[in-house]
């Protein structure tokens, strides 16, 4: 035996092309499910409605077009609201805030939750205990109650709402991310990097994060749904956008006294919030299912 024989045999069917990252594969897998397609289609429609609605709105959201709680007519297709604004125009203007605030809150929650969860899962021992117990405390307060408490102290500021909703997501996201991190941390390639003396933050960013990108994606979809509900809820309670601004949550609150006379002024924003939340949830669900499927395919090896 002189030199080790070259054992490289071309594997048929394996192409040496650059493969897409894991999260992209998850999305691709999810796209094969009908629920994902439906979710994406509706979400895109809702975002388009929110973005371009103001361009096609017949009136300004603060323009008086008729008597309060007027029934639908040729001038106001969905009738008027409690002080005579056009409901259709306000609906077309009112989506931007809820979507953008929900997105911002979700991103804040993800950044916080992923950071805390990964540090917990990777550091273990007392760091893990401390972080998780502190998050348990946050978790013990219902998110809406916590938000209300701070809004009551600092007043209804938009940045505060976004921050509070984001913070209320963090513990839940952190739990999921911690579990995913724990699993990855136990694999030998992490020990290998540690034996080499690779810096902790590099291990977190380059060894662990790419391996938990799929659950992260699912969390994003799920938390977006929750954010929409929470932000709309806070607006309804009067802590979000302030009149005369147009906002779906606020509209429900403003017009609920006239629900028997002009139900459309309440029903339309309620429906839109529901459809938006359901569509993001469908996407998250599709991603979640794809994630399980993907793990099943490759988990065996």
């Amino acid at each position, binding site marked *: *035996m002189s*030199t*080790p*024989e*070259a*054992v*490289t*045999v071309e*594997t*048929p*069917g*394996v192409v*040496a092309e*650059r*493969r897409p*990252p*894991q999260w992209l594969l998850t999305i691709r897998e999810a796209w094969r499910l009908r629920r994902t397609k439906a979710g994406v289609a509706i979400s895109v429609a809702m975002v388009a409605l929110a973005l371009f609605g103001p361009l096609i709105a017949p009136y300004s959201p603060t323009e008086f077009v008729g008597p309060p709680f007027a029934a639908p007519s040729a001038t106001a297709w969905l009738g008027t609201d409690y002080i005579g604004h056009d409901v259709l125009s306000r609906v077309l203007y009112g989506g931007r805030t809820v979507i953008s605030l929900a997105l911002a809150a979700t991103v804040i929650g993800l950044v916080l939750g992923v950071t805390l969860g990964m540090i917990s899962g990777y550091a273990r021992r007392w760091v893990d205990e401390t972080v998780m117990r502190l998050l348990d405390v946050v978790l013990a307060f219902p998110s809406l109650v916590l938000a209300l408490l701070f809004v009551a102290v600092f007043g209804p500021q938009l940045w505060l709402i976004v921050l509070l909703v984001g913070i209320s997501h963090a513990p839940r996201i952190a739990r999921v991310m911690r579990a995913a991190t724990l699993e990855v941390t136990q*694999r*030998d*390639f992490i*020990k*290998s*990097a*540690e*034996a*080499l*003396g*690779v810096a902790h933050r590099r291990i977190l960013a380059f*060894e662990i994060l*790419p*391996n938990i990108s799929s659950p992260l994606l699912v969390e994003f979809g799920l938390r977006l749904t929750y954010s929409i509900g929470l932000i709309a809820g806070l607006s309804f309670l009067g802590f979000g956008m302030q009149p005369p601004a147009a906002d779906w949550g606020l509209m429900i609150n403003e017009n609920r006294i006239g629900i028997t006379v002009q139900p459309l002024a309440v029903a339309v924003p309620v429906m839109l919030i529901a459809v938006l939340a359901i569509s993001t949830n469908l996407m998250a669900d599709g991603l979640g299912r794809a994630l399980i499927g993907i793990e099943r395919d*490759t988990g065996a*090896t």
Partner: protein
Amino acid sequence: MNGRPSATANAGAPGSGDIVLSVEQLRIVLDPSGVDIDDDVSLVIRQGEVLGLVGESASGKTTAATSLLAHQRRGAKIAGGRITIEGVDVLAASPTELRRIRGGLISYVPQDASASLNPALRIGTQLAEILEAHHFGDSREDREARLVQMMSDVLLPSDKAFLRRYPHQLSGGQQQRVAIAIALACRPKVIVFDEPTTALDVTTQAHVLETIRALTRSYGVSALYVTHDLAVVANLADRIAVMYAGRLVEVGPKAALFAGAWHPYTRKLLAAIPDLSGRHALKGIPGWAPRPGQRVSGCAFAPRCDWAIEHCAAEFPPAEGLAIEHQVRCWRSSEVRAQGASHEAHLRSAAAALGSEAEKTVVSVRELIAYYQSKETLHDVTATLREHRCLALVGESGSGKTTLARCISGLHPFKIVGDIELRGKPLAREARGRSVAERQAIQYIFQSPYSSLNPRKTIRQILAQPLSVFFALSNDEAEARMERVLEQVALDASLLSRYPDQLSGGERQRIAIARALAAEPSVLICDEVTSWLDVSVQAAIIELLEELQRVTGVSMLFVTHNLALIRSVAQEVAVMNEGRIVEYGEVATVLDEPQAAYTRKLLADTPTI
């Protein structure tokens, strides 16, 4: 029910009885794609006969074995063929009939008993369940008597207290015995054993094999024993069927097969088995067994075969040989047969030592005590690794061999007392507390190549890691360095842009070795590096390691549970048991004249051919 068959009634020469099970032209495919997993599988098992079904991973042996119970894993489908047991057509059976057939006529012992026993039920309940499901006996008393007998058959206590235990309260060997008892409960005609000892230590494996042997003899039950390890079936099977890429390439009586196999693959497989006595050198088979969908047309072994001719790629050869006794499927089998059995046997050149015993010490461990959480798991371990030499650390699971290896590499997360020195200088407990030069000097290769390579990184990124930590190299220099280490492990540079899951297990382990080599270490710690690999690939990796040690002169700590391997790589050996070194010395001395009782037991239990 008949009375229990007595041991003498079935003691006739195995293989001469009636045919109990026959498989004809079985074909199993992947479900939507229709790709073959198994094709053209025909075999028979006679009364009281043990047929060993041997093949590398992905050869379709387990799929074929479970199909005998008309069961397919998800995504697999039986596309054709006929399976009859005692005249019953298994594949045509209705679900109700199947329930009677499974466990009644044919039963199954899975690979991992800890996963197959229900963790929430007491073992007594699980044993009683199978008897009740098959309405065994006439009364509760009958069943209880049978239960007691089953337990004594598999050499387990049958008292109430033991039957009230949960699976997790049993050892791995005991769990496997319970699984065997369940399989035997209703006196089936055939039992399918699916690698039932791979998860067990050699000592436990030897005991379980002994039990299986005794039971098949005394009950006259036939068995199909699926394994990747020819050495395991060497003492158990009457006949052996060798499977490659979903097809049986050779079926024959054990003695004839070992004396002179007819198929080139069988011969290569035999040469790859580590040999305890040290008669022949390990010889790996280049390449690996193709998975379903990657198989070439004609004879799938042709790409790895020294005998391959053009015709092999064109057509899969028909079976030839002596009736159903000994059959082979190879175009050139007559020429292979004409060649003496010794053709594949390469005489060993004993793992030649570069250095003598007088070499300088590289790593020394003195009076080391290590804890797992608060429990002491290593007691007073003293060992020395010398320059240019390889020390094998042998022991069963729980013997502390991996703990010792991890202590040296700075990966043991719990308390350590005692001295670990690298060239006379004490080493910090944790890798992070060590200097860059110290971390570079000691490199660790992990057991599982499936877990030790980050699946989201390309091979280039994986190899770049040690380079960027230890050396300041330009991109071109790094690239050249990577190509060089890949060459050292006999891999092509084209793999650099691949991901680990595009590689076979053997290739992955080579990458892990390349990563360790990239750091240019003076000590290489190999922790059970072949235990996840096929026998043929294991032999190739062992060849590689021995070669590397000889060429680079790196010192090596070779951790293994397999005594048969160490002659091929190591010069010194430390045998560990329960956290202590029980015997320490030159390999030849320890293996030929073992002093410690434990070493002798370990040697006796290691399966050989």
